C-alpha cells in the first residue's frame, strides 16, 4: 500500500516532461481522463493506457511508474471481481459479456492510474499550485490541493511506521480469512486518519500564526509561461483526443 503511493510522489527531474508547464499536462490528463471514462471498448482503453508509455520513457520514470501500476494489482483484482459478479447476477446473464465488461473496467482503472501517475510523478506541487492560480482557481483551493499532494509522501511513510508499530504489538496483517484480513487494517487506518487530522489542524494553526489570509492580495515569486514545447504537447494531446473521439462519432465504437 505504501509502495503504491510512492508511485504518485513527485521526484525532481530534468527531462522535458518535468520542465513542461503543468497547464499543458493538465490539458492532457483532462482530455485523456475524459476518453477513459467515455469509452468502454477494450482496445480503445488499451490504446489510452499505451499512450502514457512514451511519456514514461521520455520522463525516465519507469521504475516509479511501475510501482504505481504493480501496486494497484489488488484494486484491479477487486474491480474485476466486483464487476464480474454484478454482471453474472444480472437478469440476462451472458458470461462472455460479463467477462469482457469486467476486463474493460479493470483496464480503464489501469489507464487512469497510469495517466495520473505520470502527471504527479513529474509535476511539482508548487508549480501545480501556481498554474492553478494562473488559471484563476481561488488561492485557497489551489493551496488545499497542493497540501493534499504534498502529504502523499508523508502518508506513505506514516503508513509504514504505523504498520510497524501495530506489528510490534502482535498484529498479524496476513492472518485469517478475507473478512479478518480487512479487519486487520482497522488498527492501521484509524491512527492514519487521526494523525492526518491532527496534522491538518496543526498546519492550519501554524499558517494562521504566520498571517495566512491576512491580506486579500497575494503576490507570486514565479510566473509560469507557456513555451513552444508546451504548445506542441497540447496540440498532440488535442489531436489524440479528437482522433480517438472520432472513433465514436464516425465508427460508432463505444
Amino acid at each position, binding site marked *: 500500500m505504501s509502495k503504491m503511493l510512492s508511485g504518485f510522489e513527485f521526484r525532481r527531474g530534468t527531462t522535458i516532461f518535468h520542465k513542461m508547464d503543468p497547464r499543458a499536462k493538465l490539458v492532457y490528463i483532462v482530455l485523456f481522463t475524459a476518453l477513459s471514462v467515455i469509452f468502454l471498448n477494450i482496445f480503445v482503453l488499451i490504446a489510452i493506457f499505451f499512450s502514457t508509455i512514451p511519456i514514461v520513457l521520455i520522463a525516465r520514470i519507469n521504475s516509479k511508474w511501475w510501482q504505481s501500476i504493480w501496486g494497484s494489482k489488488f484494486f484491479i483484482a477487486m474491480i474485476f471481481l466486483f464487476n464480474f459478479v454484478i454482471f453474472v447476477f444480472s437478469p440476462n446473464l451472458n458470461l462472455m459479456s460479463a467477462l469482457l465488461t469486467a476486463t474493460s473496467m479493470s483496464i480503464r482503472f489501469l489507464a487512469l492510474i497510469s495517466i495520473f501517475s505520470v502527471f504527479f510523478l513529474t509535476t511539482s506541487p508548487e508549480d501545480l499550485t501556481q498554474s492553478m492560480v494562473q488559471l484563476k482557481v481561488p488561492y485557497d483551493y489551489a493551496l488545499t490541493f497542493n497540501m493534499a499532494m504534498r502529504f502523499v509522501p508523508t502518508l506513505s511513510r*506514516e503508513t509504514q*511506521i*504505523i504498520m*510497524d*508499530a*501495530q*506489528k*510490534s*504489538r*502482535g*498484529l*498479524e496483517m496476513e492472518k485469517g480469512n478475507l473478512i479478518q484480513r480487512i479487519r486487520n487494517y*482497522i*488498527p492501521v487506518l*484509524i*491512527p492514519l486518519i*487521526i*494523525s492526518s487530522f*491532527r496534522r491538518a489542524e496543526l498546519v492550519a494553526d501554524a499558517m494562521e500564526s504566520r498571517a495566512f489570509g491576512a491580506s486579500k492580495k497575494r503576490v507570486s515569486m514565479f510566473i509560469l509561461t507557456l513555451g513552444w514545447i508546451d504548445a506542441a504537447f497540447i496540440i498532440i494531446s488535442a489531436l489524440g483526443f479528437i482522433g480517438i473521439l472520432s472513433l465514436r462519432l464516425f465508427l460508432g465504437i463505444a
Partner: protein
Amino acid sequence: MITFKDVSYSYTPGAYALQNISLIIGDGELVAVLGENGAGKTTLVKHINGLLKPQSGSVIVGDTDTKKSTVANLARRVGLVFQNPDHQLFAETVEKELSFAMVNFGMPPEEVTKRVNWALEEFELAKYKEKPPFLLSGGERKRLALASVLSYDPQTIILDEPTTGQDDRQKTRMANLFKQLNSDGKTIIVVTHDMEFVANFIPRVILISKGKVLAEGPTEEILTQKEYLERASLLPPQLVDLSWKLSLSKPSISFEKVTSEALRMLEESRR
C-alpha cells in the same frame, strides 16, 4: 541475550543507516542508546524485534536468529514502544487499547483484565479507562502507548524516546518503574536524547553516531568524555559540565562525587 554480529542496513543503496554494528546486550541489563538525530538508533532497535532484518550480519535474540523468525513471534518477547504515540493508538477506549496486544497474543481473559488494571494504576490512567485515547493530552497518550506494550509483560522492553513531553514527576515515576522492572529481571533498552535522565538512572550507554557504534560502557565513563559527546551532538549532563568548568581532575555524573571533589579542591586552594 541480544547479539548484533557485524550488522549493516541501508534504506537507500549506498547510504548506510547502520554499518558493521557489533554489540551484546545481556539479560537483565538497563541500557541507553544515545546518538544524534539520524544516527540510526531507531533503525538499530527495529532489528531487535525483527521489523527490520539485517542486510548483512545477524541479530540473535535469546537463541533465535531474527532472520528465521516473524515479528509476531519476536514481539511476544521483545516489546517495542514507538517514538510517536499517535502511530499506534486506535481503540475506542483506553482499556481496549491496553488489551490489544494481549488479545493478539491470545492471553487468557482473566490475565488480560488483571494486567490492564495493573497498567491503568501504574500509569495513572485509571480515570480515563472508558475514554477514547485521542482525547488524552500529548503526555498522557505517550504514557498510554508505553503502557499498552508494558501491559503484556515482554521479557525485553525497548523504548524510543519515552521521556519526551513528560513532566518531572512522570519522568521520575517512569525511571522508578524501569528500575523496578529491571530488578525483576527485565532487559530494558532506552533510546533517548535526555542526558539528565540517562545520567541519573541508567548504568550503561551505547553511543551511536552516523550508523556506527562510537563508544559503549558504563555511563560515567562515556558521558565524561568531551570528544564522544561532541561527535554524537550531545550536551553533557549538567554535573559533567560543571566538573569541566571547575577543571575537576575526575569529572563525574554523581552529585556526591562532584561536590566532594570540588570541596577538596577548595580546601587545597585555601592552604
